[in-house]
């Protein structure tokens, strides 16, 4: 009699161990990859969408990021910070995609709608903020997304974007200030 046992639960395993399993046998590597996918898919997906602001490109980069993660592991790379590593893959792919599309629609001149005549609902305000994020320059938008969407520390952000910690902190600070400026006409709603 044969029983098909369910896979051992990998949810408690650290990233580095799962990454190491990617170099193992097919069954182990598949399970480890799927667990890593479960952990990072929504984060990478959000990052790609926020950075590229183009659905098709974001999907391509998102998929390519995970494929490269797996293939990179098969080449016996050592790993100490998987979060930084996978975001760097996504970032590099995103920047390449942006460079390939110089004809991307410019957001210059796009402004946040003003609702001075009425009170905004909470959801509307949140949508306005999300819209303002998309108007930020790439370097600020990226830092803001990593900080607020991905809950990264400034050290992690610095590692992903390849800057100093102070520079990462400055980018986030300026991103927030820029968003506030964009939303200024609506800020009185916060009183």
């Amino acid at each position, binding site marked *: 009699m044969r029983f098909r046992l369910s896979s051992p639960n990998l949810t408690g395993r650290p990233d580095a161990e799962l990454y190491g399993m990617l170099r193992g046998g097919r069954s182990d590597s*598949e399970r480890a990859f799927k667990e890593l996918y479960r952990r990072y898919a929504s984060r990478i997906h959000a990052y790609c969408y926020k950075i590229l602001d183009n659905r098709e490109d974001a999907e391509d980069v998102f998929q390519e990021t995970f494929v490269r993660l797996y293939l990179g592991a098969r080449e016996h790379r050592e790993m100490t910070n998987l979060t930084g590593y996978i975001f760097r893959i996504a970032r590099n792919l995103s920047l390449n995609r942006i460079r390939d599309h110089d004809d991307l629609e410019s957001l210059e001149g796009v402004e946040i709608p003003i609702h001075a005549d009425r009170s905004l609902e909470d959801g509307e305000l949140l949508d306005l903020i999300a819209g303002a994020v998309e108007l930020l320059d790439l370097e600020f938008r990226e830092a803001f997304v990593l900080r607020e969407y991905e809950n990264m520390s400034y050290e992690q952000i610095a590692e992903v974007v390849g800057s100093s910690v102070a520079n990462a902190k400055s980018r986030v600070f300026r991103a927030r200030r820029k968003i506030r400026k964009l939303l200024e006409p609506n800020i009185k709603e916060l009183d």
Partner: protein
Amino acid sequence: MTYEHLLHDFIDGTLDYQGEIALFSELRANDNLRRELKLLMLMQKSAAHDVGAYMPAADSQEAIFRRLGFSAGPATPPATGYGWRNMFIGRYMDGLVGALVGTLVTLLVMFGTGHPAANDGGNEIASASHAIIPASPVHHDTLFLHDVTAQGNGNAMGNGAAAMVAGRNQAPTAPGLHRPEQRMMHGNGMGDGEMPRRTVSDRTGTSHEIGTQAPAGAMISYTAPRHVAISPAAGTISEAISTAEPMPAISLPRSEETADDLLPFSTEYHAVASRNFITPPAGLEVGSSGLLRDRELAGFYHLGNGGRIGIATGEETFYQRFNELLPTGDIVRHEQSPALLWGGVAFRQSIGTISALEPFVGGVIGATRLGPMGRISLGAAYGITTDISLTAGGEMSALAYRFGGSWYLSPKYGFTYGLSLRF
């Protein structure tokens, strides 16, 4: 450093105590600064609100897996939102297989060692020469019954006369446990003359003289016009004459190992498939996984009358959602799903029996590192044997915890099933 910088540090959680004092002091007097604080908090809220809209589509996942030659579907079911089917077939398959394997191993051990519960009803008559062997309370004594050997001078007992000698056998490995069976033993009568010295022999070949003490446990007789009997009252092997028509031998009731014959201890292993009353948001990280994750191990002492009490331990995930009041007057909502190891007192009360099913109500009162927890369950145990049963039932559990001076409750409901072993 400006107040704006202090504000950002506060939002980042890096502001020191002195900075907080300075900032809060300024916040009380500065409308613009308060407005900016609210905006920064809204930015964080917006990100949390927005990130849910960026869940990757199933198509994307399949495309990636396909490119890498993997099967579709995640290796680990998500912590929330899974269906009942996955709950039992996937996530808890190991629990079911464990229960099944445990049952099989136990049964094999029982058969291998001649455990009476396994043999009970399994054998019929070892050979035709063996007469009635009542299945006694088997783990106590085994009674053997044999053909009579008539000896002595003159007409002792006729051909084929038989007696039953019951012997006590302490060894459970002795072969031949039999169902009670009626068997007529006929004697040919006794002739005139000197009373012969009569003996009967038991299965081991030991002879027992009429009139002597019967082996302990001998308690049955058979009838015939002339016969050898074992008197249950006197405990001696005797000879009696009956004018009555031959009667069937007395068949003792088929014995069974009853719960009363067992030690008053049992152990149970349960898998728990439960869901929170409030569905956690997708993507919420689940706490660490342990050996007992979604499992429960319990040991019981049986009080009698279907009641039992014991200790239990396990690990479960409880979804927590609670609010924190910031010094600014804003409220921040926290959400987490830690896997908590718990331990406590367990109790159960059977509420009658329906065939082999024994409905019960039970519960656990225990503690976790975050606060007390409790569980009530309603289910039934199905007895495979006297000492092995499968249990299943519905359950409700809750974790109570305290944060910021307020008590919160994390209720769950679900299904539990497992294996119970009685000693």
